[in-house]
């Protein structure tokens, strides 16, 4: 492929004793320069996302092939699950479903009331975001990045920027979409921020990913009313994450006498490492004219009580809120 370049470069050199093509140093210069240009183009201007999409699409069969052995092992294990384990699980799930149904009865009543009150106040009707169930196919090829790869992509209607949650709380946000998969960046990633609220006193703040499975809430005064054990929920003002989803629990508060700010560290509540299934929430619609007062469904798919009115544009990522 690169033979042509070498041949062109060759006459400029003194004939070597061994035929080696262009000197390694000139190759080094050429390819290093190319790498740096590509890195700059990728990092600063994201010109190469379409190239990346095409190649990832082309690599998909290879990926399926690579995943096949572990999938076989998993399926075989699943096939030989003990009978009593299934019975036990079934019993537990039934019990859980019953409890949830009781809770949902109250929820639908409250939702109906909420819609009614909002319409009285000429407010926006809360939207039930559409959800798509996805499964984690692997936890990324790079062990030191906070991403997981989910087996849903553009072919399933996934868009970059969608919020991702599991049964316990927020996992993160879709950052890259490929034809058959998408990359979800966890909220603990340094690049991601999430607008939160302290559940106890409704104090609003922005949490920044701090790596190592922690979140940091900077720029809050040392005397702020936050305690260890406080629950952080999404505030919903970004228009990406619906309000009221659990995000993290405060694990430590450090006071540094030299800094006017408290160092507040919290750990996410979502359990990415423990199970495979997660939900991808659709981006909220922006056309307000399209929103009609709909009767709430009697069985919303999961426990999201309410969505705050959406005002911001849908492409806005939460870290734009800095």
């Amino acid at each position, binding site marked *: *492929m*690169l033979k042509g370049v*070498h041949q062109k470069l060759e006459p400029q050199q003194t004939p070597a004793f*061994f*035929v*080696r*093509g262009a000197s*390694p*140093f000139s*190759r*080094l210069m050429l*390819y*290093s320069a*190319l*790498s*740096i*240009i*590509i*890195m700059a*183009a*990728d*990092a600063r201007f994201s010109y*190469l996302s379409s190239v*990346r999409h095409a*190649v*990832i699409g082309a*690599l998909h069969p*290879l*990926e399926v*092939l*690579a*995943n096949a*052995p*572990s999938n076989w092992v998993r399926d075989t294990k699943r096939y030989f699950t003990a009978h009593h384990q299934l019975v036990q699980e079934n019993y537990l799930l039934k019990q859980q479903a019953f409890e949830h149904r009781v809770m949902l009865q109250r929820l639908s009543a409250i939702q109906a009331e909420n819609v009614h009150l909002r319409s009285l106040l000429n407010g926006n009707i809360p939207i039930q975001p559409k959800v798509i169930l996805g499964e984690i*196919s*692997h*936890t*990324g*090829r*790079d*062990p*030191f*990045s906070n*991403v997981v*790869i989910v087996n849903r992509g553009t072919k399933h209607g996934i868009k970059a920027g969608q919020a991702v949650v599991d049964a316990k709380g927020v996992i993160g946000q879709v950052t*890259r979409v490929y034809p058959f998969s998408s*990359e979800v960046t966890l909220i603990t990633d*340094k*690049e991601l921020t999430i607008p939160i609220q302290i559940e106890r006193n409704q104090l609003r703040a922005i949490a920044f990913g701090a*790596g*190592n499975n922690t979140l940091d809430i900077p720029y809050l005064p040392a005397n702020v009313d936050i305690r260890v054990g406080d629950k952080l929920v999404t505030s919903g003002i970004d228009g990406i994450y619906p309000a009221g989803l659990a995000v993290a629990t405060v694990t430590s508060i450090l006071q540094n006498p030299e800094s006017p700010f408290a160092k507040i560290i919290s750990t996410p509540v979502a359990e990415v490492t423990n199970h495979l299934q997660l939900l991808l929430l659709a981006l909220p619609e922006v056309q307000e004219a399209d929103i009609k007062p709909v009767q709430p469904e009697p069985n919303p798919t999961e426990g999201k009580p309410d969505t705050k009115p959406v005002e911001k544009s849908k492409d806005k990522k939460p870290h734009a809120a800095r």
Partner: protein
Amino acid sequence: MQPVSRWIIYLTLLVALLCHLFPWEGRGIILRPVFMFAVLLYWLLRSPHLCNVGTAWVSGLLVDLATGSLLGQHALSFTLAAYAGVTYQRRLVLFNAWHLTGYVFLLILLERVVLLLLKLFAGNENPGWHYFWPVVTGMMLWQAMLFVFGAITKPKTR
């Protein structure tokens, strides 16, 4: 050491990419060697007229695309380490097996260090000492390559 076909090289590189795409998890992903680089290094030192800095660049780019990391990161680290490998390639005849092992160890370490620097410049957090495990496993993989495809240095003659 008989000459190798170009296609053997590309096939082994493809298999290395496949191994890289295998869904590694937990401890596996920490210990996972940089398959592409270990395989590349073997061919680079054995037949640099077929596998050179350009091949290193293309395979680095493939790793970048497959892993979704910043495009060009692995390409640059592979290129630099491959250059270092090719520079002293002709002196390998003088090396014995232990010298060669040390040399390859340094090359794999160089690849890791360059990549780490690029990652830190790109704003990633410091990954800690775990990051260097692939150097050890990469050495093992390289030894396995020697075992499968034959030694590079001349057999010792008395």
